[in-house]
């Protein structure tokens, strides 16, 4: 019997290319990228600065549209969806962790965590959010604003927000890029432990080899092309 994961990977990228116009000249950032990601797996995308990692992440998450090729996320071809349909898909299936946490400055930590659920119409999920914030060790900081939290604390809140909607897939962009070593280690441990507990697929962009090594698979990108696909 065929492996369901192989037949229906959670993420399927085919001949994906992205070209920007820069000063009237075309700039090819990604060229003919092909890969699949099975459900529940963890993948690191690594490469030098400017190689196209973040661009690839954005395309896989439906944050941008490719110049050519296709991205299928949870059996939905992103190219066939309009912007609002992609937004809904993200809300129901995707979690995000950004390099600089990207918390909304006017919301408290707890309010930031609950945004994905509120977008679905679930306005009374504070209990769930409280549980998560305690899981990340910031239970007593729930009513603090991002400006009152350190960089590492902000990133932990971002992690809690990423998991609040039980995502099927988590996209993480350089989670420790702005943190010192100890904080970075703490955040990374938290990320992987939460991921393991929830069974979410993890796509992680990083330049940190140690973090990459903790994933099941590493995709190397250089100059916009996939050069290595190691497990």
């Amino acid at each position: 019997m065929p492996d369901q994961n192989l037949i229906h990977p959670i993420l399927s990228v085919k001949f994906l290319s992205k070209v920007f116009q820069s000063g009237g000249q075309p700039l090819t950032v990604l060229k003919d990228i092909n890969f699949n990601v099975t459900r529940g797996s963890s993948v690191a995308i690594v490469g030098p600065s400017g190689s196209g990692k973040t661009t690839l992440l954005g395309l896989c998450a439906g944050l941008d549209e490719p110049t050519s090729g296709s991205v299928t996320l949870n059996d939905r071809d992103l190219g066939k969806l309009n912007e609002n349909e992609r937004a809904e898909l993200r809300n129901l299936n995707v979690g995000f962790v950004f390099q600089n946490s990207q918390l909304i400055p006017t919301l408290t930590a707890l309010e930031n965590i609950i945004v994905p659920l509120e977008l679905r119409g679930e306005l009374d999920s504070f209990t769930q959010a409280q549980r998560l914030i305690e899981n990340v060790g910031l239970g007593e900081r729930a009513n603090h604003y991002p400006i009152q939290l350190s960089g590492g604390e902000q990133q932990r809140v971002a992690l809690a927000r990423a998991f609040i909607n039980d995502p099927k897939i988590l996209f993480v962009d350089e989670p420790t890029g702005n943190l010192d070593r100890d904080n970075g280690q703490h955040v990374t441990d938290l990320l992987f432990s939460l991921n393991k507990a929830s069974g979410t697929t993890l796509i992680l962009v990083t330049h940190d080899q140690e973090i990459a090594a903790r994933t099941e698979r590493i995709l190397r990108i250089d100059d916009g092309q996939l050069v290595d696909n190691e497990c």
Partner: protein
Amino acid sequence: MNVNNNTDRPRSLFRWMVVMAWRDSRGQRRILFLLTLCIVFGIGALVAIGSFRHNLEVAIDLHSRSLLGADLSISGRRSFTEKTENFISTLGGEQSREVRFRTMAYFPKQGKTRLIQTRALEGRFPFYGEMVSDPEEVDFLTPDTPVALVEDSLMIQYQVQTGDTVKLGGMAFEIVGSLKRISGENGVAGIFSPRIYIAKKWLNATELIKPGSIARYKVYFKLPNEIDTAFLEEAEKGIFAEERLNYDTVEERKRNIGDVLDNLYDYLNLVGFVALLLGGMGVAGAVQVYLREKLNTIAILRCLGSRISQAFGIYLLQIVIVGLIGSTLGAALGISVQFLLPWVLSHFLPFDVHVFISFKNVFISFAFGWLISLLFAFIPLLSIRKITPLHALRFSFENQHLLRRDPWFWTVSSIIAAITLGFCFTQTSQLRYGLGFAGGLAGSLLILSGLSLGLTWVLRHNYPKKWPYALRQGLSNLYRPHNRTVFLIVTLGMGTFLIYTLYLCQGLLLQQVTSWGAEDQPNMVLFDIQPDQVEGVTAIINDAGHSIIETVPIVTMRLTSINGQTIPELKADPETKIETWALNREYRSTYRNHLIETEQLIEGELTVETKGEEPIPVSVEESIAKSLAVKLGDRILFDVQGIPIETRVESLRKVDWQKMRTNFYVVFPNGILEEAPTFYALVTKVPDRVATADLQELLVNKFPNVSAIDLSLVIETITSILNRVAFVIRFIATFTIATSLVVLAGSIITSRYQRIRESVLLRTLGASSGFIQSMMAIEYLLLGTLASIAGVTLSLLATWALAHFVFKLSYNVEWASLPVAMITVSLLTLIIGLANSRGIARHPPLAILREEG
């Protein structure tokens, strides 16, 4: 997982938008409050003016009868004939009579003379309304000795008391009280010729009414029944036309006053609307800056699954609420100001106005102002739709939203333009005037924008490289990325333009009058001089050492027919282009054999002498020719005090009416009117005010019926009226200035964080707080200076256009006022800028970042 079903979801999402709008406003409420202030003054002006208009309409209805003081009045330029008296007697009711004319009043105790309007009254008047005097209800009609009621302002001006004497003609009157107010007449009415009431029984004794005297004879009626309008219309074509009578009813007076007040209201409303438009622009600018800070938040929400409409809805809700708060505050301000308007307009109102809150008008202005602010805010809000979630990862240079390619931008802009045009049209009642005002407004904004861009370009490319660093840095701040320099220059410039144009126009009009006082120009006209008084008057003037420029004979006459059609026939003709007033008026014509310096022949030839063969060739002034619809060769039959004289239009003249000379509509040649009953006017030049007063005193004592108009009186009167008008306009224009200043403050505050970042960086690199403050001061000073240059330049252009096309005056500017205007605007900008930048330069950098983060 608690997922709501489909019917509850939209409601939940709306609730979320509301909650999110509230949460997102945290830390930004000061900025949002500034947005509300942008529209407060504009809405305040519209509420105040609109509500007060309603108050006026109610007052006019309430006081309608007192506007005339009677149910009906009939008047004419000569004493009533038997035919007229018979007609008057058929009307019945209670009647009172009045003769009013201008003459010189002499206050012997004070030694002062003044041109005044005498009103010789018989019978009870006013029948409705009141004549307010001090003491109250003073009786000047029944006493057996001659007494007078004198205008209060005149008594104050010449320090005259009750009990003093005033001489009118050959008679001395004891002053029994001061006249404060008459219902139906406003304060301006008494400026040129203050009023003095006497009993009609003393009129003959004054010997002031002589042949040729300009007087108006009136009869007022209090009628038992409603006036039959059909009867009046019939009379208008019949006896009124024959006897050259005018009539006035309450409805007519209401309509006239309503028209005048409507014009005033419409103009003030337009000025208030400019404040609202500027406020709208301020809102658009502030929202644009506000949303720039929200880009990241919006992108994050999009990443997390928010639809475009949800993200848009959050900020739309904020703007809607901000607009409602601003409109509410504006309405409250407007209601407060409304209670000030009776005082502001006191000189122009003919009655007391009861001020009450007009909820309908408050609501209309509230809704209109809120709509305008929303439309303007919509323009920057449109950009939210183009913010992609990718922005949360990084800024995409493909993400730039070009408004001009967005059809919604053009749709919203068109709606704003249509509303502006519609508003202008409703205030001016004629499409071309509405278009003109809207076009002028758009043109002003374009010119100001162009000037702003030009000035900043010039400054940027031409400043000396050796300027101190603080100066260079202050200058470069004007064109930092996302600067609002042009926008601020336009809003500040618009306020400057409005106020300075008003000032220049006032100066232009006054200058025209004062130019009459040039060295070689006459500055006094004496009139109502009888033939046997000419020699005596001439002697007095010569003995006083003054030269006589001209002595002019004047003959009064009336029109009988034009080209064979009688006056009643002409009035009854529905297709006539002739204006009624030109048919009714009494003409004062002269005879001479030359043109004077204020005249220019434009058609035909001037006949200098005639042997008396009719038709007599006459020269007609161009504007009266137009009013009478006559051209060269047309025949006009005049009734010269009972003698018909047929004339033919032989030439047309252009007259400069603005010069202080005796100008005439109709000039006869020598040889025909010399034997007609004549009175004289005399034109002279008097060196100063003291000489003027002395001469007037001499004349009034010897020839009390001779009246004098001197240039200083004219200047004083016009100045007084202009000042009152200017005060009203300036009061409303203040709302525009206030809006400009709020927009300026708002812009500085919304860019505060950017300035802090710059300041912190400079302080980190070693700049002192003094340097930072100098830099900011220079930036604001430059901004204010550029705005004042733009505003003043536009003002000069607009004043030139008004002088050339509207007032038809020569264009002279009081250049000394230019630097004053510019310095005022620059300093105001500097003060507001520094006030809103307090603390940036002095606090430690890290403390500032913690506070403001």
